[in-house]
């Protein structure tokens, strides 16, 4: 976090928070000057209590945020990698449950686990799960809200995503791997190389994670990006010629992916036309 060279002697007048901050996350750096034990006792083990507290608490927080990643890597490997992450990306928020948004990207660039190509997306899905857990409480769109739209307005209706909703698409079996390692059961074999998409929602208090097929993903993604229903259905058909619109609308309502819908109008429709 600080670029002070290892050999730089600390300024004795350095404020205590600068002095601690410069070395807390780095076990190779010397104990700050100006701290001591009582009656001239040594301070190394004493100061290391703070280093241990900081590292242990944050590594533990990461293992609680990413339990599937931790299970896949094994406790020891996970903690080692989490320590590396912590040194490069210490938390910038005081809310521990906000930590680790960059962990997926970090894993993707971490050479020793390059062979676990699915792992970054599993981390991203776990992070999305916790975001959904803490998202604002909102009543999701109800079937009656959709039914209340005039039939001619349905095609051009637009939808506002629910705050807990998160969509992700992966080249790997992210949903299968996530589910096996978080809620189980663990299948005999997982083919990690099968591309999967997932939808995270929290219609009430329980976070839900669903697997989506290609058409459903394209449909919900387009709606989440502000497309009208008809355009989203078009995008879905392009992704999957067998796309089933009524099943996708049922899924959209049941999952609580959206909060509100607005009747469209012709001018909006024209704007969106290619």
């Amino acid at each position: 976090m600080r670029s002070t060279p290892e050999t730089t002697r600390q300024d004795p007048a350095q404020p205590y928070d600068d002095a601690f901050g410069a070395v807390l996350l780095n076990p190779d750096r010397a104990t700050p000057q100006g701290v001591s034990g009582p009656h001239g006792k040594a301070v190394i083990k004493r100061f290391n209590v703070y280093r241990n507290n900081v590292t242990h608490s944050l590594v533990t927080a990461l293992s609680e945020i990413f339990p599937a990643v931790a299970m896949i890597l094994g406790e020891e490997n996970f903690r080692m990698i989490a320590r590396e992450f912590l040194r490069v990306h210490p938390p910038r928020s005081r809310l521990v449950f906000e930590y680790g948004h960059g962990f997926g990207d970090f894993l993707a660039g971490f050479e020793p686990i390059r062979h676990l190509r699915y792992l970054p997306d599993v981390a991203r899905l776990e992070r999305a799960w916790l975001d959904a857990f803490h998202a604002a409480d909102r009543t999701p769109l109800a079937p009656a809200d959709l039914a209340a739209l005039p039939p001619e307005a349905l095609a051009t209706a637009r939808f506002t995503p629910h705050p807990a909703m998160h969509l992700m698409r992966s080249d790997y079996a992210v949903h299968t791997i996530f589910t096996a390692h978080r809620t189980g059961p663990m299948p005999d074999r997982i083919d990690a190389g099968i591309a999967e998409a997932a939808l995270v929602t929290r219609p009430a208090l329980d976070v839900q994670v669903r697997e989506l097929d290609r058409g459903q993903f394209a449909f919900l993604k387009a709606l989440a990006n502000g497309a009208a229903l008809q355009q989203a259905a078009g995008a879905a058909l392009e992704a999957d010629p067998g796309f089933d619109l009524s099943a996708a609308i049922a899924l959209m309502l049941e999952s609580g992916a959206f909060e509100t819908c607005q009747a469209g109008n012709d001018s909006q429709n024209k704007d969106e036309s290619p």
Partner: protein
Amino acid sequence: MAREAKPLSAIQSRFPAFHPADAPTGAPAGRAGASFKPQHFDAIAENPASVGFVEVHAENYMGAGGPPHAALTAIRNMLPVSLHGVCMSIGGLDPLDPEHLQRFAGLVERYEPFKVSEHLAWSTHDDVFFNDLLPLPYTDETLARVCEHIDQVQEAIGRPMFLENPSTYVLFSESEWRETDFLREIVKRTGCGLLLDINNVFVSATNHGFSATEYLADFPLAHVGEIHLAGHDEQEDDEGAPLLIDSHDRPVADPVWSLYETVIAACGPVDTLIEWDADIPDWPILQSEAAAAERILDRHRTLKPEVKRHALHS
């Protein structure tokens, strides 16, 4: 040595110095409570009267919504809630984070806790959050900074807060104040109350080789509105002597119970929290720790607190 950072009268008129006798009626008077953990929700809901109050870490409830708020709302309907902040970084030289302060005040507004507390410690510097209660030297400069920060917190929440004494592992050569004098001066300047963590006293006393009893005799007990008790781990310092770690992961140690009984005998019942934050046991174990504190409180309930206050000084 004492300098007035601000006209004292102005601060006192805003935040009258806390005295337990001023506590609003209806609040539990000298009850024992426990840290609230979500896994204990069902057990507590089954018999809320098994504990006098619960305390929550404010930061765990700073998300927008979801299960944490649902649980706290339900608990708040059953029991008095004490709000304990761990990340305000009152003891840091950096200015308080206005966003964090606003979130904190929002929780006070929303849940109307019967007590609000924070630590004489720091945890964020240069935007990096260290997730630990880090120590500060006790100087005129840090005193002024801490008082400024407490003023801001009290301004934001519209009431006095309680400041908790720390457990520490190192000392600062630049410290000019004894911790008890430092706390006394903070109370005088800001009108805040004190949260006396007796395990922290025992941990620091052991680590720094001073007498916990003497520390407590010098502690401004008249301003203590809450007590914390917790378990600690024992390691060794560089010389092989005991180095106690404030781990909150086990039952309260016997010497801490003894110190607690001494304090309660001296100043009468004070709301007391059993803290347990790691290796959290099933509810009956945590509840039985609170019940043990309640029994000590009961033993001293008949005597009038105002008669007994300051008795440790005599």
